[in-house]
């Protein structure tokens, strides 16, 4: 029953040195990501959520080695990405692609769509000559654009269209893993729904796995199989998506779910909403990094970092899981606009 994992991440760590100059060493390090471990099966979607600055994007970039990890191991499809020489790494990028947050900034403005899409195809020898041209056209239609868009420049497209181009580029080498870094956050809600659905359709068709980095819980709930919650560079809870929304175990997860915007104006705010700011990643708090903001914090939290506790399919790093789990489950519906939009699109799809 256990399929071998496509992606294994072990104790991935990325610290950025700060300060220092030409002749001085760095003064300290921003501990952006520390000891992040997870694994991903083929065709699965893992969402990484958390506040801004918690290290989500750094995790995504470090696991593709767009940022050189400080330590840790990343194994994709049996190949240890973290140990590859630069030329091998470039070749390995065929199997791992990325979709970026900003559809306006992530396409080279001086290259036509055709050039942009041909580039990875020719580079990784996916196809050549006439077949490469055909493949580019196929890609464009696959992501909902048409072949005549190929000779236009990025500035001639809308944000949603550009994100489709980015998806086509990520898809062009038939990768096994795509990291979506806030891939829909910059789009408006109706376009978000289209892109989320497109990503799901493509996953069904091509079977690649997604690491879906987002701060938008409603989108995560729609697309993810599993969710990892990050706080100050560490994963504090990881669980299947229904589990995490129905029974959030870590107090920080609860806080996040509480903080998400509520669609019904009449509903009262529950207690334990977000308090305080994220501490500095330059000097994370001792023990459990969340203790200064945690309603359940006790002495032990200040001194000892909690290890991972496995409960069923969930993995939680907290000293007070029992107390945390006692609370009522939190049901969170879609924002009405997105829900309506998704319904319309689902119906359209069902009709064929």
């Amino acid at each position, binding site marked *: 029953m256990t399929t071998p994992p496509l992606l294994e991440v072990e104790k991935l760590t990325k610290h950025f040195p700060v300060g220092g*100059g030409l002749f001085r060493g760095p003064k300290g390090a921003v501990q952006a990501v520390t000891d992040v471990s997870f694994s991903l099966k083929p065709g699965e979607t893992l969402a990484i959520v958390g506040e801004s600055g918690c290290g989500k994007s750094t995790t995504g970039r470090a696991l593709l080695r*767009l940022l050189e990890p400080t330590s840790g191991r990343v194994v994709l499809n049996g190949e240890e990405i973290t140990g590859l020489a630069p030329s091998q790494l*470039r070749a390995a990028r065929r199997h791992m692609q990325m979709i*970026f947050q900003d559809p306006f900034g*992530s396409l080279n403005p001086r290259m036509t769509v055709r*050039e942009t899409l041909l580039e*990875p195809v020719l580079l990784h020898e996916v196809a*050549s000559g006439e077949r490469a041209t055909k493949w*580019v056209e196929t890609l464009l239609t696959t992501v909902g654009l048409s072949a005549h868009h190929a000779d236009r*420049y990025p500035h001639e497209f809308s944000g949603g269209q550009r994100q489709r181009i980015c998806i086509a580029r990520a898809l062009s080498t038939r990768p096994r893993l795509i990291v979506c870094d806030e891939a829909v956050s910059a789009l408006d809600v109706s376009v978000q729904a289209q892109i989320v659905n497109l990503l799901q359709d493509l996953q069904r068709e091509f079977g690649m796995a997604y690491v879906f980095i987002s701060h938008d819980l409603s989108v995560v709930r729609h697309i993810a199989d599993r969710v990892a919650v990050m706080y100050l560079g560490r994963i504090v809870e990881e669980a299947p998506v229904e589990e995490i929304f129905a029974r959030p175990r870590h107090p920080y997860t609860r806080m996040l779910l509480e903080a998400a915007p509520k669609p019904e104006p009449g509903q009262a705010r529950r207690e334990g909403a977000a308090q305080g700011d994220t501490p500095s990643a330059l000097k994370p708090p001792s023990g459990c990094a969340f203790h200064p903001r945690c309603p359940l914090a006790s002495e032990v939290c200040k001194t000892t970092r909690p290890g991972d506790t496995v409960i069923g399919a969930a993995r939680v790093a907290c000293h007070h899981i029992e107390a945390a789990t006692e609370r009522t489950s939190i049901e969170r519906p879609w924002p009405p606009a997105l829900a309506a939009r998704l319904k319309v699109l689902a119906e359209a799809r069902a009709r064929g």
Partner: protein
Amino acid sequence: MTMATDTADRPLAMPANDGGEVAAPPPRAHWLRRLLRDKAAAAAILLLALICLGAILAPWLAPYDPALNSRAVMKPPSFMKGGVPEHLLGTDGQGRDILSRLLYGSRLTLLIGLVAVGLGGAVGSFIGLLSAFYARLDPWVMRGIDILLSFPAILLGLALVAVMGQGIVPVIIALAVSSVPDCARIARGIAMGVMKQEFIEAGRAVGLSDVALFRRYLLRNCISSIMIFLSLRFGQIILIGATLSFLGLGAQPPAAELGMMAAQGREYLLFAPHIAVIPSVLIFLIVLTANVAGDALRDVLDPRLQT
């Protein structure tokens, strides 16, 4: 790069000479039209083009050999009192036709300026782009550039002439070297802005080599801004070049060069001022038109200045 077989109807541009790719996104006709709508810019470009044309066609346009002495010395221009119709702009102290010398002189002056800006711009921009591309190099490269910045062009010219002997080559080298730090700083600034954009990372994520990333992503996005800076720099270089000639470095007689012509006319300034004034006016016009045209080009092409 592995762009082996590519028969697509629009092949991947191999940006060996990126000059042609400069203004891809804003359609060419569009910015040209906007450029010419600016009357001052249109006039400056027209005048500069005329001067360049005159310089290029000097052997056909010049009525006399620029080095040919005659007995008609220090004749004022033909439209002034005492002028002779054979010499439209008069003659200098040795009876050489000023119009002919002007045409040939602007040729040399423009050539010195172009080669110096081209060399200095290419080297400087490359250093600047590289420094932005490899952040690790940046502090070292920029400190080196600071050292270079501390040599004034005129001093450098004098030193080079002392070492290499007189001629236009040491002057060109001095001018080129003195443009390197400015160009490097400007190119670095432009490139830093481009490097911050996500598409650089996207290119890396696709698996591009550094060379491809540098050429197709960084250079292509910087080149138009750099060209604008160089067109502004051109005017300054012409001026410094003329200054060096005026000081007697650079071109040697009997060759004509605008700065040198002005210097020679200095001796007759009191009784035949036109000998010095005419070449000085031409230098002034070249510098002015180059600056106005460069400014206008920047206004039209620089997206940051567009409202």
